[in-house]
């Protein structure tokens, strides 16, 4: 392998990149855009859920209950309606996430003693929001119930402790103390951006030569297959590292995501990940001598698994067993484990030995396949 020829190819590729400022702009703007979009937009928290109430009792007690919903940061009591049909219509139209129905004998039955139920219709089209909403509603009702019980016990002359004993759940949320979706999403965006940029740019390098008919010229020169591969990928490797730095800097500086690990660990993992992503893009580019086809396949092969099967947004341990098995093949899974650990947990190289080893193996395999795949022939 000749150093001089490799550099020449790299320089040629760099000129391609420079001549097409739009692509370069994309390579640099894309990370920022993704960061902003996902950093702000990707949140699963549920707050200020719209509540419609149908209070058929209209008593002081039922009003007190509704006030609790109003006071909760999770709910907004938007309207009290006069009929059941109005309530269901609001849920149907998506105006209400939660429809509360208080029965006409609510306060009377509560005064008589025993258990009284409050009905809540929850719009469960979005199952996650519905799940959170039901949890919050249960907490509101539970708090109300406890207070009613205490008041009753006191009236009866029974000691407070005759009621349900107070158990306080002392919660410690480790690694992401404020339960911010952002802290969970932003580290993953680094992997997403590099999968995207790497696949988009590198999948086109060989396909472009074929399409423009310059492959013949390249083949007639003394450069070897390996020199072409390395020369062509080095510029994108650099761009990828710049992108990673941009993402990480933006995530920490702008979004205030904690960075508790070491830069060294992150750098090693990122470099390995880039080798894998670029190598796969290159193999696709060799296999499909058509820019459009190559980039579509690259997206299918890199972006989709990174998005879905790496643990970026959907927890892997909740997936069915066959899908979990497939996720072990997804290289981004290991990088994501490392990213989240480096950002939030502050784990060092030692704790991340497993995923790092997996990435080294991947980089070696992809590197070998990429060199073998590309032959300097014209047929």
């Amino acid at each position, binding site marked *: 392998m000749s150093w001089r020829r490799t550099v020449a190819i790299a320089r040629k590729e760099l000129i391609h990149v420079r001549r097409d400022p739009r692509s370069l702009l994309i390579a640099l703007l894309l990370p920022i855009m993704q960061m902003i979009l996902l950093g702000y937009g990707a949140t699963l928290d549920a707050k200020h859920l719209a509540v419609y109430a149908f209070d058929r009792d209209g008593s002081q007690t039922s009003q007190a209950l509704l006030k609790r919903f109003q006071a909760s940061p999770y709910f907004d009591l938007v309207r009290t309606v006069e009929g059941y049909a109005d309530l269901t219509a609001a849920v149907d139209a998506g105006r209400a996430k939660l429809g509360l129905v208080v029965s006409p004998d609510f306060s009377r039955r509560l005064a008589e003693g025993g258990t009284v*139920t409050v009905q*809540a219709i929850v719009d469960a089209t979005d199952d*996650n*929001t519905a799940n959170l909403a039901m949890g919050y509603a249960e907490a509101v009702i539970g708090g109300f119930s406890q207070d009613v019980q205490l008041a009753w016990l006191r009236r009866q002359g029974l000691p407070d402790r005759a009621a*349900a004993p107070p158990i306080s759940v002392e919660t410690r949320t480790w690694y*992401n103390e404020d339960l911010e979706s952002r802290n969970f999403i932003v580290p993953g965006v680094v992997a997403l951006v590099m999968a995207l940029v790497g696949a988009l740019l590198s999948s086109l390098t060989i396909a472009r030569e074929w399409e423009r008919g310059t492959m013949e010229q390249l083949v007639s020169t003394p450069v070897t297959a390996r020199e072409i591969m390395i020369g062509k990928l080095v510029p994108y490797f650099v761009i990828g590292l710049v992108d990673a730095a941009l993402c990480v800097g933006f995530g920490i500086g702008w979004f205030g995501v904690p960075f508790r690990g070491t830069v060294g660990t992150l750098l090693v993992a990122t470099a390995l990940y880039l080798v894998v992503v670029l190598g796969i893009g290159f193999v696709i580019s060799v296999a499909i001598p058509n820019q*459009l*086809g190559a980039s579509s396949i690259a997206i299918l092969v890199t972006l989709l698994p990174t998005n879905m099967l790496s643990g970026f947004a959907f927890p892997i341990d909740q997936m069915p067993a066959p899908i979990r098995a497939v996720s072990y093949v997804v290289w981004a899974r290991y990088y994501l484990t490392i990213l989240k650990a480096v950002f939030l*947990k502050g784990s060092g190289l030692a704790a991340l030995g497993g995923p790092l080893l997996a990435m080294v193996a991947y980089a070696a395999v992809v590197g070998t396949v990429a060199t073998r795949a590309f032959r300097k022939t014209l047929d």
Partner: protein
Amino acid sequence: MLGRIVPLVVKELLQLRRDRYAIVRLVVLALVQLLMFGYAATFEVHRVSTAVLDRDRSQESRELLSRFTGNGRFEVTAVARDGAELADLVESGRATVAVQIHPGFAERLRKGDTAPVQVIVDSTNSNTALVALGYVNRIVNAFAEDYGTDRLARTAPARLRLVPRVELAARPWYNPSLESRWFFVPGVIGSLMLVITVNLTSFAVVREREIGTLEQIMVTPIRPVEFILGKTLPSFLVGLGEMALITLVGTLWFRVPFRGDPLVLLLASALFLTSTLGMGLLISTVCKTQQQAFASSFFVLMPAFVLSGFSFPIASMPPVLQWITYAIPLRYFLVVLRSTFLKGVGLGVLWPQMLAMAAIGATMVTVSVLRFRKALD
């Protein structure tokens, strides 16, 4: 006019059939996406790996901890011997939730003092942590409730029946077993139609320009409007085909219910497609090469996808982003999709979404046609 459009449509469809990778892009990609969202996309929280440490070793503490097993939400995977081991279980990722009961728990319960239970959650995934904490609270509250009832049954059985209590009877409508699949599968239709038709349309034009056949077409008697129709109709048909494909697989394989009127869905799809085709044309007017078109479409499609409410609720986004979502046709289409699949509501409820899509579609088509004619001159 028709005599000139039909051959162009036929030519486009022929070209699509000749493209070896078209089948991959149009069918395989669609099915792979559907499979991923049907199986892998889940925000559900089941079988959370849980470590416990019982430092009280009383009947009460055992009873409380036993409630963490056998409810499907938690799976006690480790019993720690001390605090350090418990912390280590969370740090190494072997447990997502760790529950610790301090000595004196039962004593405090009996006296009526506040009895603390310590819960450590690995909240790297904030959503899982949030949902899991909700379950923990439910379990602890139910335990406290039962404990109180038991005690009253012993001390004042006559009055037990009289203790007032308010309970929530929550009825999750439309998706009673809270399956993420029901939420995602209808959404996949919208996101696929968006990506495929925008790309197909923009490439159809840019390719002619790149190869140099655009001039040839321009010297034929075809008029710009006819050319545009000829280029967009195939994408329109492909878009409807995708809709049918995903609807069929989604309802038959994934058993997602379809409760609404197929005609409402068809109408909404047509309105949605006018805006995506307009977007595709618009991209084609500003791009010279397919690579540029591909990259530009990414810049348009990424925000549309994230901000549409496809996986993240719009109501939780910051206000500025929420305003932007009003300009995104996918936002409205997703509402129609989920409403027709799960809610079974009709035009009486969905007319605002239809109107919005029609307005955006009309604007997009007008702007793109105007720009397009200028680009041809």
